[in-house]
């Protein structure tokens, strides 16, 4: 058994399993729910297998087709991708349990194949070491996500899905032009080889501009975030949880991977870093203020995503200094945000299912009738606000620590202000949950599995507050942030 676990190439399982699962679900619509759950569980196990393997054999590498880097495509996974895979598996499993109870039969037939292909795209993206291959996974992810958003039907969902599709396609095309330039400039599309061959030249600057713009659009950072709130708010609850928690993080992951491997060594001028930091700061403030102004719960949570993504970009100016741990803080923030945001959207889904609407003003005595959902929303809120004991707090603490050691007072103020605004909009929702309702709504029952899925995710976000040491040591496998040259 021991050798099987360490010898078997888990990366392949992570990609082929959901693909096969998606096809079988498509072929056999009557059993689609059970098949879907089994596949997602199997994916979660394979991530466990991969983690076990990487713990004792370090970085995971696999040359597809046996051809090796410049010609063929390489699969590559280090600590950072392992963590993203683990988050995807965990959040994906909880959302699958939730969706099993959420969707009626004819919607389930359409949901499961799309979701499994999205899962395959996410896993393929986190494992890929080839920028053209990443383009294909982006397209796969984009089309699946758009179709899932459009599942809800109705004016808002279709408008949101259309806006999302146009933004995703535009982003992918800009990214593809960047790939074309890099290929013709340096003769390869493999990230590792690129990082060796790249030297400052107009091609690299153009590629940085194009791919950066494409990825910023797909990550919905502040000036380019217009498509996110309508899409995430109007989609069915499990889908908005998927989008906010995982899909948005995938393009950020690629931006980070490209930035660390290819572009960072060439950036000498401070300008680029401060620009990204500025974008992040504006995203945090603008997103939080917009979230505070919303009257509908799902729009509030969607704008909260825009704000939390801003936090991730605050790390760019902080990562300049040698040996700075800003990136591990970003990894931690991304993961706890994924867990907490997924829990929040699932809780919102329960509220909509229970009350029939998501107007915040009359979220009446839901806390008595749906105590588990209210608890899930509160615990997720704790992590979003960055209050201890939660993963969000640890991420915020690490970021503040780096900012203070570098004396970046502007970023410190933005982080604290962001935390206060987050507290404002989270408690705005929680405050309503305690009030007495004049008219007793006729409640529809919410299946227990849906409430427990939201609560378990929220508890995971809080538990992340105590797992900092093991998780951060996991991130350092394969030294994704290039700290090794620095460490004494």
């Amino acid at each position, binding site marked *: 058994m021991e050798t099987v676990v360490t010898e078997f*190439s888990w990366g*392949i399982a992570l990609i*082929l399993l959901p*693909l*096969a699962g*998606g*096809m079988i679900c*498509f*072929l056999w619509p009557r059993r689609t729910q059970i098949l879907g759950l089994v596949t997602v569980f199997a994916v979660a196990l394979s991530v466990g297998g991969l983690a076990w393997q990487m713990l004792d054999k370090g970085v995971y590498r*696999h*040359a*597809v*087709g*046996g*051809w090796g880097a*410049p*010609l*063929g*495509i390489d*699969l590559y996974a280090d600590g950072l991708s392992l963590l993203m895979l683990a988050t995807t598996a965990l959040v994906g499993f909880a959302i699958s349990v939730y969706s099993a109870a959420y969707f009626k039969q004819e919607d389930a037939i*359409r949901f499961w*194949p*799309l979701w499994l*292909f999205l899962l*395959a*795209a996410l896993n*393929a993206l986190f494992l890929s070491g080839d920028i*053209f*291959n990443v383009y*294909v*996974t982006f*397209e*796969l992810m984009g*089309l*699946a996500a*758009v*179709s899932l958003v*459009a*599942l809800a039907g109705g004016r808002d969902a279709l408008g949101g899905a259309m806006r999302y599709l146009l933004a995703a396609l535009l982003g992918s095309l800009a990214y593809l032009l960047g790939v074309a*330039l890099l*290929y*013709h*400039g340096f*003769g*390869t599309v493999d990230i590792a080889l690129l990082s060796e061959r790249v030297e400052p*030249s*107009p*091609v690299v*600057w*153009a590629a940085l501009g194009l791919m950066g713009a494409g990825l910023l659009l797909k990550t919905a950072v502040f000036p380019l975030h217009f498509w996110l709130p309508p899409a995430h708010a109007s989609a069915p609850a499990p889908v908005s949880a998927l989008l906010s928690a995982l899909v948005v993080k995938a393009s950020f992951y690629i931006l980070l991977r490209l930035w660390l491997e290819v572009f960072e060594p060439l950036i000498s001028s401070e300008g680029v870093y401060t620009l990204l930091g500025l974008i992040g700061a504006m995203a945090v403030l603008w997103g939080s203020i917009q979230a505070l102004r919303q009257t509908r719960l799902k729009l509030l949570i969607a704008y909260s995503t825009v704000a939390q993504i801003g936090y991730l970009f605050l790390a760019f100016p902080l990562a300049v200094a040698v040996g700075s741990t800003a990136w591990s803080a970003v990894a931690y923030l991304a993961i706890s945000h994924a867990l907490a945001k997924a829990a929040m959207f699932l809780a919102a889904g329960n509220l909509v299912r229970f009350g029939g609407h998501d107007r915040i003003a009359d979220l009446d005595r839901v806390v008595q009738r749906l105590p588990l959902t209210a608890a899930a929303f509160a615990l997720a809120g704790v992590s979003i606000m960055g209050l201890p004991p939660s993963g969000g707090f640890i991420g915020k603490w690490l970021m503040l620590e780096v900012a203070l050691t570098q004396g970046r007072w502007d970023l410190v103020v933005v982080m604290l202000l962001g935390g206060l605004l987050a507290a404002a909009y989270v408690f705005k929702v929680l405050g309503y949950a305690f009030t007495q309702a004049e008219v007793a709504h006729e409640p529809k029952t919410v299946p227990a599995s849906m409430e427990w899925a939201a609560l378990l995710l929220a508890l995971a976000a809080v538990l992340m507050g105590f797992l900092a040491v093991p998780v951060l040591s996991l991130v350092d496998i394969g030294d994704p942030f290039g700290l090794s040259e620095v460490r004494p």
Partner: protein
Amino acid sequence: MEALTLLEWGFDGLLGLGLLWLAWRALTCPELFKAIVLFIAFGLLMALAWVRLDAPDVALAEAAIGAGLTGALLLAAFAKLSLVTGHEELKPARSEKNRIRFQHYWMPATTLLLVTAGLFYVILSLPPYAAGLSVEVASNLDTSGVSNPVTAVLLNFRGYDTLLEMVVLLLALLGVWSLGDTTIHREAAPGLVLDTLARVLVPLLILVAAYLLWVGAHAPGGAFQAGAVLGAAGVLLLLSSWRPHADLIAWPLRLMLVLGPAIFVIMAVLLYLTKGQLLEFPPAQAGILILILEAVATVSIGITLAALFLGGRPRRGKGQA
């Protein structure tokens, strides 16, 4: 040599400017139908450009899929659009709206011009001679099982991309089907010309597809081009209001659609178990395996593209049992 380069220059210049002019007209033409037709013409001109750049495989793919099928999809959508929105076509009154629009959009226009100039500079800064990966492709060509370098790259060296791309095609169909259904009742009988044309062309197209599939191993052609031609045959059939038998559209259709990506996944698993690397073809049997892959993929792509043209999940019509 002098005359030849002058002639070449004349041809390239004409083709390049033609492309830009057609694209510009397609984008700014007030009538939507004319815009689509211009786009199809642009696609055909594009195919000419690929031939000029020694990329016959791409020319085939572009002609069949880029110009042909996308054009068909656009025209079908346009027809359904006028059906849905009721009025035939937006009156030319829109043309001065476009003109006003230009004053309104001067700011993005200028930034775009700057970006284009910047990209021009970048392109021109590239070294005049670059072999890219052609050396590696040539050296590994003999162990790839096919002699046509493009098919070798597509199916063997970067086979993983093609696997994902097959899934993208299937996923697009799933997305289209999740958006809605169409009943497959038989519309009005096709006109005489369309009917005879279909009867002659469809078998011919199937023959061409088979040839393209076979020739792909050592000359321009291959699964996607053959699949596109098969798809064109399917579109022609659908246009002449042929519909598959009612009980064919249940699981058999789904099986045929899934077959392409499924064969890839199965092949990948088998190869991994035998050779230890994902999609690693043993050099000896590579040719045959690739041919099997391509054959199944062609059929699956053809059916998927035809189904995409249909635009909705085929459901039993009310009239049909």
